[in-house]
């Protein structure tokens, strides 16, 4: 580059010298000085132009040509705005949909967790046969911490809600109870103040809390004075130790973190109670397999030491990211495939349009090559144009993606883990840019190669607008591909739609209509003792039941279909025969006596609880039909006894219908047995833990907006420190339980509709183009006596043939793909992957749309005036 600068600096001097030498020579030949100089200048040529061209010799040719191609491309597209608009919009939809799904896949699946060295972080679970990820018991966790070498650090946590009642209006907060070292394991330090120390792991220490940056800003106006102050959580004073860095998040949006040792003693003292989530950081160089090996050895020693509690317990280590992302990864990859198909269809449309246009431009390119343009140059010109189109489409696509993603997240707020990080960022921009570029080159290359290969001679000679037959061939192929791909998407959407329909038809075991559920944080002043708490809930429910429009109301510790879990072992009869882990497990509902009526769960035998079943009366339980059929096959369960671990040996008083707790389509492998216990009969020690979990269910024909103000009224009537939160209708709960099917179904339906639209535009374009090309032929046919109907049928038939070929190919592909999808995911319910209803109806839809798309060109063809057509020569 320096050479270039030096060369050009001296250029003017060189030219002057050159002209002077020539002048000198001319003078020597006998010309007058003036004539000599004039002749020299004439012989040299235009000095300015020479200087300019010399400079051009040093400039980078390709940049200049690119700019030239660009400005030419823009001019050419502006001359044909309709064409450009259709292409840009088509691509904007295709690229937009892809960018949207990619931004989701990136945030949820691809992006690393926001902690230092995130791939070293794992979750450590216990396991028993049939249950791979069992929460640990805290005593077991302590043994792990002491006896393993694989982990640099290890920490325990449980999720817990808190009611914050001091310093301002009562507020319900999400939080966690953690062991010291929780933040350090994640590699995070409080931004202000300090972390928990091992002192906080001891019971009866000072209650301490670390709060989120968000709570610090909203509740304490970012004041540094907040540190060391105390706040009232669930009636207990906690000292603020620290404030976390902004944006810190672990699985949920928690605002308060307290020490496990300050929580419910039952949860961390009893080896048989599994309520702990355990995270750990693997030491450098230690693999998951090695850690698991060490963990099993520890578990085996625990098995020997505590055969009742820990007999037959294994260990299971899962990478933290895999745990958090769960199985949405597969669904998202499926969706990415689906949008990829949409993009292919969009590209086929654009390639079609460009083919038509390049046919019209054959002469232009023939003239260019006649003037000396190389073939590469022509291809480059065409590619510049198509990339220009793709880039414009890509920019619009980013807007489409942004709108689409925010719409989707609003529609499915809870269905994606890590959704908070979804957005348009640098990797997403890069993705959009590269697919735009790739798409521009891909769909530009075929027409470009075709045009550049066109025979100069014949193109120039014929006044014709270009070769048509060969183009029509490629166009038809593109339409067939579009039809096939669209059918694949339609089948996918159809199968999911049928699955949702199947799920909706499942009897959940209770009446999901007209039920609202919500939680109430009862004032700490009302819940000091267990009997106070029982009384407070009884009074609360009495007041709620008196609200006009409330038909029935009671509470439960777990709401069906809400993914809340409360399982535990039981034995038939009084004798415990095996270890806790080998004993049968059931799902426990702790409810009030009106719960059965509220949910309208059928009572099959005996009775449900009455207010007469109290802490002082005989312990009784109600069992579900599945439990009854499994363990009391030949006898009447009513009157038999069952021992509930951690509680009593109780008499069975009734049998009720089983509730589909784990999802409408759940196969019933995990905890299918259900046991109901009256909340009022729970032991005093259990009351605080279960009271916190209670949700109130209200059966009312009124809608939420009408009933909830009345509910809030009676709740607030008892005290100003009782928040009402988590208000959801049972219908919402049901919908959310189907989110893993509904999200892909709605997105697939949108993509399939998009594909259908694009494909119909595609087939319309091709048929209509072919009608234009065949006007003369049609004129001849009519002149020879073909009826309008025949012409109409001929054109429709042409379109239909393309559609049917595409359909056949698509159906074969869809069969294979659907089988593949159903083999690795649980998306399908109640339909086989080759469901004939889906395939037939989807094929009919596609054929119908294809015929409709051909209708307009067919009608145009049938109205051709033979005289006009023939005179067009």
């Amino acid at each position, binding site marked *: 580059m320096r050479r270039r600068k030096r060369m050009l600096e001296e250029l003017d001097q*060189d030219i002057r010298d*050159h002209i002077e*030498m020539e002048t000198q020579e001319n003078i020597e030949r006998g010309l007058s000085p003036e004539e000599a100089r004039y002749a020299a200048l004439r012989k*040299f040529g235009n000095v300015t132009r*020479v200087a300019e061209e010399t400079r051009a*010799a040093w400039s980078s040719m390709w940049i200049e040509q690119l700019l030239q191609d660009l400005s030419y491309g823009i001019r050419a597209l502006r001359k044909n705005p309709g064409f450009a608009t259709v292409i840009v919009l088509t691509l904007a939809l295709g690229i937009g949909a892809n960018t949207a799904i990619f931004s989701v896949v990136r945030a949820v699946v691809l992006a690393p967790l926001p902690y230092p060295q995130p791939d070293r972080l794992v979750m450590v679970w216990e396991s028993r046969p049939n249950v791979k990820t069992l929460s640990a018991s805290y005593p077991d966790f302590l043994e792990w911490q002491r006896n393993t070498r694989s982990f640099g650090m290890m920490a325990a946590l449980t999720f817990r809600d808190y009611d914050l009642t001091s310093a301002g209006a009562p507020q319900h907060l999400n939080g966690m109870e953690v062991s010291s070292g929780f933040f350090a394991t994640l590699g995070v330090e409080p931004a202000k103040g300090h972390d928990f120390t091992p002192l906080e792991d001891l019971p009866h220490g000072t209650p301490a809390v670390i709060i989120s940056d968000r709570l610090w800003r909203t509740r304490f106006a970012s004041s540094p004075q907040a540190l060391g102050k105390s706040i009232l959580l669930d009636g207990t004073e906690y000292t603020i130790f620290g404030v976390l860095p902004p944006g810190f998040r672990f699985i949920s949006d928690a605002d308060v973190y307290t020490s496990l040792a300050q929580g419910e003693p039952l949860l961390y003292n009893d080896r048989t109670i599994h309520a702990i989530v355990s995270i750990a950081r693997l030491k450098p160089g230690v693999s998951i397999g090695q850690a698991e090996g060490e963990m099993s050895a520890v578990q085996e020693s625990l098995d020997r030491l505590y055969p009742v509690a820990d007999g037959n317990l294994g260990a299971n280590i899962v990478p933290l990211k895999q745990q958090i992302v769960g199985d949405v990864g597969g669904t998202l990859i499926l969706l990415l495939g689906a949008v990829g198909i949409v993009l292919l269809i969009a590209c086929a449309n654009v390639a079609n349009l460009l083919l038509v246009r390049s046919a019209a431009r054959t002469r232009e390119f023939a003239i260019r090559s006649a003037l000396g*343009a190389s073939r590469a140059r022509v291809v480059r010109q065409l590619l510049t144009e198509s990339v220009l189109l793709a880039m414009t489409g890509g920019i619009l696509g980013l807007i489409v993606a942004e709108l689409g993603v925010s719409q989707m997240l609003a529609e499915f707020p809870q269905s994606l883990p890590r959704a908070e990080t979804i957005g348009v960022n640098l990797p997403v921009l890069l993705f959009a840019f590269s697919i735009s570029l790739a798409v521009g080159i891909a769909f530009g290359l075929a027409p470009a190669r075709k045009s550049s290969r066109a025979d100069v001679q014949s193109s120039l000679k014929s006044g014709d607008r270009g070769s048509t037959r060969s183009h029509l061939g490629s166009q038809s192929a593109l339409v067939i591909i579009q039809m096939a791909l669209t059918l694949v998407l339609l089948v996918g959407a159809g199968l999911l739609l049928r699955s949702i329909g199947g799920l909706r038809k499942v009897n959940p075991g209770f009446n999901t209509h007209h039920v609202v559920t919500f939680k109430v944080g009862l004032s700490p002043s009302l819940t000091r003792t267990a009997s106070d708490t029982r009384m407070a809930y009884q009074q609360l429910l009495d007041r709620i039941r008196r609200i006009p429009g409330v038909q029935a109301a009671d509470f439960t510790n777990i709401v069906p279909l809400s993914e809340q879990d409360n399982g535990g072992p039981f034995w038939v009869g009084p004798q415990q025969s095996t270890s806790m882990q080998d004993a049968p497990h059931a799902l426990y509902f702790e409810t009030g006596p009106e719960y059965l009526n509220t949910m309208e769960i059928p009572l099959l035998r005996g009775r449900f609880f009455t207010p007469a079943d109290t802490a002082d009366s005989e312990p009784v339980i109600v069992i579900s039909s599945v439990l009854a059929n499994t363990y009391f096959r030949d006898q009447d369960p009513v009157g038999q006894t069952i021992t509930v671990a951690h509680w009593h040996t109780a008499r069975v008083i009734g049998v009720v219908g089983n509730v589909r707790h784990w999802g409408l389509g759940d196969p019933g492998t995990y905890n299918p047995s259900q046991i109901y216990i009256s909340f009022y009969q729970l032991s005093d020690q259990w009351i605080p833990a279960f009271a916190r979990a209670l949700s109130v269910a209200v059966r009312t024909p009124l809608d939420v907006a009408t009933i909830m103000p009345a509910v809030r009224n009676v709740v607030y009537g008892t005290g100003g420190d009782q928040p009402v939160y988590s208000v959801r209708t049972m219908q919402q709960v049901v919908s959310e339980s189907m989110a893993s099917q509904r999200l892909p179904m709605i997105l697939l339906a949108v993509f399939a509709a998009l594909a259908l639209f694009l494909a119909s535009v595609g087939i319309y374009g091709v048929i209509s183009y072919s009608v234009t090309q065949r006007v003369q032929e049609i004129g001849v046919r009519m002149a020879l006596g073909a009826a309008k109907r025949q012409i109409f049928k001929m054109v429709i038939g042409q379109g239909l043939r393309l559609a049917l070929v595409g359909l056949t190919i698509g159906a074969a592909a869809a069969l294979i793909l659907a089988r593949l999808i159903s083999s690795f995911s649980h998306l399908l319910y109640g339909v086989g992957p080759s469901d004939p209803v889906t395939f037939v109806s989807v094929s009919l839809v596609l054929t119908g749309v294809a015929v409709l798309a051909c209708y307009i060109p067919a009608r145009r063809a049938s109205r051709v005036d033979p005289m006009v057509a023939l005179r067009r020569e």
Partner: protein
Amino acid sequence: MSTKEQRERIELLQGTLDLLILRTLLLGPAHGHAIAKAIEFNSDDVLQVEQGSLYPALHRLIKRGWVSVEAGISENNRRAKFYRLTTKGRRQLAVETSKWERLAGAIARILRPAAQEGKS
């Protein structure tokens, strides 16, 4: 379109001009004016080249590394730039020359029968 047309034609000419420059420099380094004179003289003034068009061509050859530049003194005792053929340029000249000869031969073969046809 029109500028493009001109550019293509100039490119065509330049190819030939490049060859002539390389051939001239084979005899030894020369300054710009001397190259122009040599081309005119050796082609018996048949080739009417605008002397100015020499310079873009020279610079292109320098950029490609076929010609190098050095300072020198011209015959009438002036400071001038002398252009010298590089080894790479020498190789390129061989390639270009054989290419040109093949082209000229081909054109001649095409033209000869036509001329005979004209006679008869």
